[in-house]
């Protein structure tokens, strides 16, 4: 990308947004279609982030519990693992 000033963040973001519009053909859509498309995209994105948040939190907390149980009762756990 010759001639691009990457440091100029607002115009760089605008340029990225324009590229997104061109790639997904939302440049060609009528306004109400754009509203529909963007709200659908934002909803999907929100769902994805929420899923990631929940999943990561659950995974982290279960991993932490396992670690705690290892530290709390080493012998017991070692026997159960051996069996």
């Amino acid at each position, binding site marked *: *990308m*010759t*001639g*691009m000033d990457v440091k100029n963040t607002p115009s760089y973001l605008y340029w990225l947004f324009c590229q997104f*519009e*061109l*790639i*997904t*053909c*939302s*440049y*060609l*859509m*009528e306004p109400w*279609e754009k509203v529909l*498309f963007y709200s659908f995209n934002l909803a999907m994105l929100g769902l994805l982030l929420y899923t990631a948040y929940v999943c990561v939190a659950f995974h982290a907390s279960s991993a932490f519990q396992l670690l705690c149980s290892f530290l709390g009762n080493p012998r017991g756990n070692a026997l159960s693992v051996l069996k």
Partner: protein
Amino acid sequence: MANPSAVCNGHLHHHHHHQKQNNLLKCGLSKKNGITKGMKKNGVSNGTPYKKTFIEHFEQAPMYVAVFTFVGFAVGTIFGYLRDFMRAWGLEKRNIATERAQQKDFVPLYQDFENFYTRNLYLRIRDNWNRPICSVPGPQFDLMERVTDDYNWTFRFTGRTIKNVINMGSYNYLGFAETDVNALKTVTIELEKYGTGVCSTRQEMGTLDKHVELEKLVATFLGVEDAMVFGMGFATNSMNIPALVGKGCLILSDELNHTSLVLGARLSGATIRIFKHNNMQSLEKLLRDAIIYGQPRTHRAWRKIIILVEGIYSMEGSIVRLPEIVSLKNKYKAYLYLDEAHSIGAVGATGRGVVEYFGMSPDDIDVLMGTFTKSFGAAGGYIAGKKGLVDFLRTHSHSAVYATSMCPPVAEQIIRAMKCLMGLDGTTQGLQRVRQLEKNTRYFRRKLHEMGFIIYGNDDSPVVPLLLYMPGKIGAFARRMLERNIGVVVVGFPATPITESRARFCVSAAHTREMLDTLLLLNCEEFG
């Protein structure tokens, strides 16, 4: 073949070409961004029939571009179905052609993909085509301003004209589309002498002395025995191929041939086989199979085998591999029909087309066909070759028998343009135009390469397709270029493969360096 140009020495020019080519090769390979360049040279390495390097590019786009293109089409298709659903259920007003209620038990008319595509994707960007112009299509032209109130279903003219739009779409390779009074002096004289209409076909009372003069001039220009001119370029192909071949003959036609050639081939009734674009191995295989197996059921020998190719292919910008085709045709005893619509006047040291570009003799090619629409600023086509061939066409061609002949002022325009090119009018203007076109082409292509765009085609062809790939970009590119006063032609699905949409620039000798620089700068801003 006498070459009356005293200014250019054939050998000197070839060396000059060769050096320039090598320089281009060097600077082309060094300055690149991360995209690997798949430069294809012709497959034969030593002892080639080519006198100079033949460089053609058909670079493949990186994978993410293909993915994005599909994403774009997927979104477009989903919204297309949504709109169709809304139209079918009456939630939206129906503007398109639909079938009448009485026809509901018949086979549906508007259900195939082409119509779906036309309704939902083409219509959204329809304002980029069929733009009416209101001046001569020179290097700059005037457009009528056109707006749409309901998203391209209907248009209306505001009454204003957009002036001095840089013209990158007209096939004005040598810049002969001009209104300069001095240049058109002879044309005005002929217009006053003959009027405009001929009102007859060639065989009845339509052969004027102007036509005889023009035909002799065309034959001298190309270096052949005789030539015949027709009023319309498309009709030259579609009406003359049926006169040359018929049932029991075999036509080997390139994949990307123009519609006129395809139509002519189909009208003739001969068997048609397609070989891959510019691919000599594919052509040779077809030739061998044709000779070994003969006609389909009877296995008799084919009456005639004819190869249909074009000089420059207008969608790809590639030049035909003529030396290899001629050697194949001589080996397998086939005939060659060369359509030089875009290449006559545009390539070659003195503008005599691909035959001169490759340094070959026009005797090698059986039927030389070309049009006057592109480089000569007129209308019509010609077929040239041996005298026997042209005499046969004068009596047997549909176009000669039924079509109106070329009108005299147009014939005079071609005569003056050709005389200018050959230097017979006493100036070197013709040669200057050819050189200018060459310089412009080289400059334009080199700059676009340096900027990192994907360009198809041969380095010497004035047709420059810039690949856009994504459907959203087709509309955006054309609209933004028009906002900045540049008129470009963008091409999408039916004319090109669905994933390879492009913007096609036609470089002209009349373009100045400033115009090309403006265009390049704006291109850079658009995508940079």
